[in-house]
């Protein structure tokens, strides 16, 4: 009997561990809430799984906010993954007007709406602040016949089937779109004829290393180690300026190579739709203070992020602008009408 009890105790302990960090306070917003905002636990949501890019951004943000004392409330993090962020987006709709929940997003927030995965869009959220950016990188093996991004574009102009592009997101999502945006800027016609091959679970990097695809479209931060070791070569990236240090700083931008296009893999913090004005102001300002701290600088260097803060209003207009760009490309390849 004692042993059975011990076993049950073990289960209870484990269940306890699982659920710490999942507790959510009821959102009680009244007039007095405004003065004392924020009070009680905050709810930080990651729309994807643990260990991913969103997760990394959210956990780092929470850590810096706590370490610098900018936010003294508890900031438990919940992973609400599914449908490329669509599940968390649906959840936000159910807490319209809540002032304690924030969530991290990046370009897929716009793409999952444009490609029809979800009926909700970025307009059904409250943009609070843009924090950081990574950029698209176009990668080949060391012995590839393509020596510059223009070699690739010329080959595609001659025959759109001649270069097989691999990436880790599904068709019509980020890795696909960022390459097509550059191809479009380079004057490649027939964007819909270009073969994009989607791999799961980060498998595309192994595929380019093994020579099974010709070019890998991915995030600049994702290939740093393999570029440093000399296994892979980045032809160009999609920022409008040189990024990072060491091997990364040696990589040219597409603009330098004569292709007039940029793609920013931005990451920002959002609230639910109808978030009260005082909460929007609080987060826009607090995050603005956060990005000025040495702790944040250190985190950005460590993760290879480019600091790219925008406040709530500017972030909203930025989103309007890029949404139009993404839509244009998706129309070009016939994924939407």
């Amino acid at each position, binding site marked *: 009997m004692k*042993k*059975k009890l011990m*076993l049950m105790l*073990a*289960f209870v302990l*484990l269940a306890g*561990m*699982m659920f710490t*960090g*999942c507790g959510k306070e009821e959102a009680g917003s009244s007039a007095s809430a405004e003065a004392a905002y924020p009070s009680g636990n905050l709810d930080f949501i990651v729309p994807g*799984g*643990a*260990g*991913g890019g969103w*997760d*990394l951004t959210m*956990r780092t943000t929470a*850590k810096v906010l706590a370490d610098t004392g900018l936010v003294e409330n508890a900031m438990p*993090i*919940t*992973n609400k*993954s*599914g*449908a*490329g962020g*669509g*599940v968390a987006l649906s959840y936000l709709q159910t807490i319209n007007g809540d002032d304690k929940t924030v969530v991290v997003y990046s370009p897929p927030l716009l793409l999952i709406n444009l*490609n*029809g*995965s*979800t009926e909700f869009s970025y307009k059904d959220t409250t943009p609070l602040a843009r924090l950081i950016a990574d950029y698209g990188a176009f990668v080949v093996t060391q012995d590839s016949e393509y020596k510059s991004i223009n070699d690739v574009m010329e080959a595609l102009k001659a025959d759109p*089937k001649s270069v*097989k592009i691999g990436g880790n997101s*599904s*068709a*019509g*999502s980020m890795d696909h779109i960022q390459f097509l945006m550059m191809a479009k800027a380079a004057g490649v016609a027939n964007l819909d004829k270009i*073969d994009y*091959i*989607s*791999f*799961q*679970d*980060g*498998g595309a*990097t*192994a*595929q380019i*290393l*093994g020579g*099974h695809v010709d070019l890998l479209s991915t995030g600049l931060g994702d290939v*740093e*180690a*393999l570029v*440093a*070791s000399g*296994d892979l070569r980045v032809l160009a990236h999609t920022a409008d300026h040189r990024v990072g240090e060491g091997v990364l700083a040696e990589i040219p931008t597409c603009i330098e190579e004569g292709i007039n296009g940029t793609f920013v893999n931005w990451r920002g913090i959002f609230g639910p739709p109808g978030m009260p004005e005082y909460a929007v102001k609080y987060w826009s300002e607090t995050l603005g203070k956060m990005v000025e701290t040495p702790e944040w600088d250190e985190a950005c260097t*460590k*993760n290879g992020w480019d600091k790219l803060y925008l406040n709530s209003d500017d972030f909203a207009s930025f989103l309007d602008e890029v949404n139009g760009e993404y839509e244009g490309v998706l129309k070009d390849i016939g*994924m939407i009408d």
Partner: protein
Amino acid sequence: MIEILQNLMGGFVIALQPYHLLLVAFGGILGTIVGMLPGLGPATGVAVLIPITFTMGPTAAMITMTGIYYGAMFGGSRSSILINTPGDGAALAATFDGYPMAMKGKAEAALAISAIASFIGGTIAAVLLVLLATPVSRFALKFGPAEYFLLMVAALSMTASMSKGNQLKGFISLIIGLMIATIGIDAQSGIKRFTFGVLELQTGIDFLIVIIGIYALGEVFKSYSSIADGTKKAQKEFGKIWISKEDWKRSKWPILRSAPLGFIIGALPGAGGTMASLMSYNNEKQLSKHPEEFGEGAIEGLAAPESANNAASVGALIPMLTLGIPGSGTTAVMMGALLMLGIQPGPLLFTQHPDIAWPLIASMFIGNIILAIVNIPLAGLLVRVLAIPAKVLYPIVLGLSFVGVYAIAGSIVDFYLLVIFGLAGFLMKKVNVPTAPMILAVIVGNTMEQSFRQAIRISDGDLGIFAGSTLALSLIAITVISILFPIVKDKMMEKKAENAPETV
């Protein structure tokens, strides 16, 4: 060689520090526990740990997280053996002979051999990792979409042909599994398939839900009648958790053969422990002198997959450590944690951070020993689950199943799916349709379909790509042999029987 040994010794010096020893034990035991619970796999265990790793150094964090990973391989089969419910995919094959052994009153031997096989498999794989990490990682890169497709075909055809005498039902089960695997957004076209407007279905159905539904809930439904009339007797007497000389004689070669197989399959990004353990099970069944005992409680049928899945969990670290590519769901989470600690795994990890890489490898040797020591007495405790009357045990199983499924994605939709698969599992058992081909099809189906289409897109529609490399041709040969071998063997046995009827 000398250099490797020196590095490894240096690693042991760090890994043997009391703090790190404590973490190895903690990670391993936590892994054993999450592994045992249906739905909670190593990936969840590692994810739970992420906030804690923030406060540790990278070496300590890695040691703990890998401890969870192979600890879960030790634990996963406990529930397979005792309640016919695999703790995670990699423990699926342990139900085939582990549960029948427990039903025959041999649970003690089953639990013991699974710990022993896990220990040996994990240790052999750790040795292989030390010696062969770089060549194996380069070999894994030869697997393009065409090779992946052929590998999946090999695994599926082995499993389907395994259900001998019942092949038609085996294939029905397989096809249902493949159909389930098509649910969700198709990565190659971005189009939604069979989601019926349900947002949660867009990412597909997690195979863990299928496993828990079919096994745990299916088992509960099936036993419902026997609970009422009390025909299912609880075991009262328990022996020592150990194996006989005869058991060891039968298991020794399967364990030794399965470890390298598991190691290599594990090192292929995306293949993983489930496939490794199923392939080793099929291997042993085909090599066995008495294949008819497989599925009825053959100890080697439990020993082989247990060795293979532990070896696979070690192999899965290779793409991450040598290339910075996650080889499995669990290593993907680990990589995320490493990035948060400011470590970029990749080809330079061993030269830039030998203080992390080598202690980690050393800790795997130590962790395997600790887990073997912990798991034998733990099994003595766990085996008493069989003494719990069904009417108490099954409600607990039911509760754990729902908790486990909720832990996967925190989604209520998964509860409905769980119940649907539970009923499906019950019905399949009623009409004797084997469930293993369906489960494997759910696990590999999506990758198989995607690989096929990736290959076709790369070759501009030319099917020749599937015979375009030596590796591809070898995989085709393996598939053909795996289908023909049982048939040829049967014919030869028949002939033998005809020639010498008196000896039968």
